[in-house]
């Protein structure tokens, strides 16, 4: 552990559970809900946010002493928008189908509150290396929730994972379908994303009662 001191490790591990950006800080909900019908889209979205938040945090942290505080929101938005354009163009070039599925939600990374929230709360007050770790930690925390939600919605909704039929063929009636199992198509629809996140929050807060709101 020569590279990471104890404090640095905490920056990465804290957002994974007890200070999770989605379930505790309530940041970045919009994209977390909209694109989780498939596991693949959730993973790609997580990688995009990891890139934008990691690099953006470093850039803002390097500029923190020269940004006038009155126009800092505009400066932050421009930095994020530039990074998001890079992500968008890369996706369009190498994963065109996927970028169609994500549609406007790649653009909406710009206003993903997770990014502005971390810029305001951390990068403006800390050095580049710490900000980088904070960015990575928070986007991993975001990724964990996205992947859990995407996993359950794709598994229960269409019986597949990453496009592979893990439960057997629904029409040929192989695998578990042989025993009368049915896909729950409702899991693919928008409202179930909200309810799934609600259930994750329930599980997390029952395990750690300190997080319960009064």
């Amino acid at each position, binding site marked *: 552990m020569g590279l990471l001191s104890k404090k640095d490790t905490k920056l990465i591990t804290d957002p994974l559970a007890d200070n999770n950006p989605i379930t505790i800080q309530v940041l970045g909900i919009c994209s977390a809900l909209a694109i989780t019908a498939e596991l693949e889209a959730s993973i790609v979205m997580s990688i995009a946010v990891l890139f934008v938040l990691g690099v953006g945090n470093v850039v803002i942290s390097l500029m923190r002493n020269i940004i006038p505080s009155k126009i800092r929101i505009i400066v932050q938005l421009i930095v994020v928008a530039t990074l998001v354009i890079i992500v968008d163009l890369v996706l369009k070039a190498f994963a065109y189908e996927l970028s169609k599925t994500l549609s406007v939600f790649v653009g909406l990374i710009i206003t993903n509150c997770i990014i502005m929230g971390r810029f305001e709360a951390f990068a403006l007050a800390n050095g580049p290396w710490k900000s980088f770790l904070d960015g990575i930690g928070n986007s991993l925390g975001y990724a964990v929730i996205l992947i859990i939600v995407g996993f359950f919605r794709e598994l229960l909704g269409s019986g597949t994972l990453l496009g592979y039929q893990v439960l057997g063929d629904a029409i040929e009636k192989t695998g578990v379908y042989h025993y009368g199992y049915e896909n729950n*198509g409702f899991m693919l629809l928008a409202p179930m994303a*909200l309810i799934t996140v609600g259930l994750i929050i329930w599980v997390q807060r*029952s395990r750690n009662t300190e997080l319960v709101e009064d």
Partner: protein
Amino acid sequence: MEHLELFFKSIFIDNMVFATFLGMCSYLAVSKKVSTAVGLGAAVIFVMAITVPLNWLLDTYILQDGALAWLGEEYASYDLSFLSFIMFIATIATMVQLVEIVVEKFSPALYNSLGIFLPLIAVNCAILGGSLFMQSREIETLGLAFNYGISSGIGWFLAILAIAAIREKIRYSNVPPALRGLGITFIITGLMAIGFMSFGGMLTGGDEEEKKPEMIIEAINTQEKELANTIKGTK
């Protein structure tokens, strides 16, 4: 008729919160009391009514493929649409600051009620989402863009008003401790979204399939078809 259809469609069928999950962060954070929810909702309607038509002008006369043709023939081949994210967000951020300054100058009363919410709005995804959907749905005229901005804003306003009212009431209910606050709000929003899904057939007259360019509605339709196929397959 076209205007009326877009108006009701944006409020109920394509509701910002319940159909596309835009603006969820401020929707969850500012919905503890009805009075603050009304303030933020009004500010969203106001800013969307300004930024969507502005971004429509920007998109039609500068960013689209061949939009620069009015400058002369040699510009007709330019396609600047890759710049749309940065241009839209810059417009929104400057408009929000401008609106804040103007409102503060001319109507201090309105500023006192809306003022604190305006900085929050620059990073509300509903505002940028409105402009991006306006672009991807290819809305045709400036009038329709204005209509779309206002009606999406009203849809968002209705959503936050409803959840704020429910949250004020639910304080007296016996919710499991671990679900209190955020958890139950998520689940209620999910149930409300299921309710709003029933508006889906409003403009089509029931069974008749409607052809819409929107990805999300299309995705839901194909999912329903797949579901129907699997049901047929099992019979």
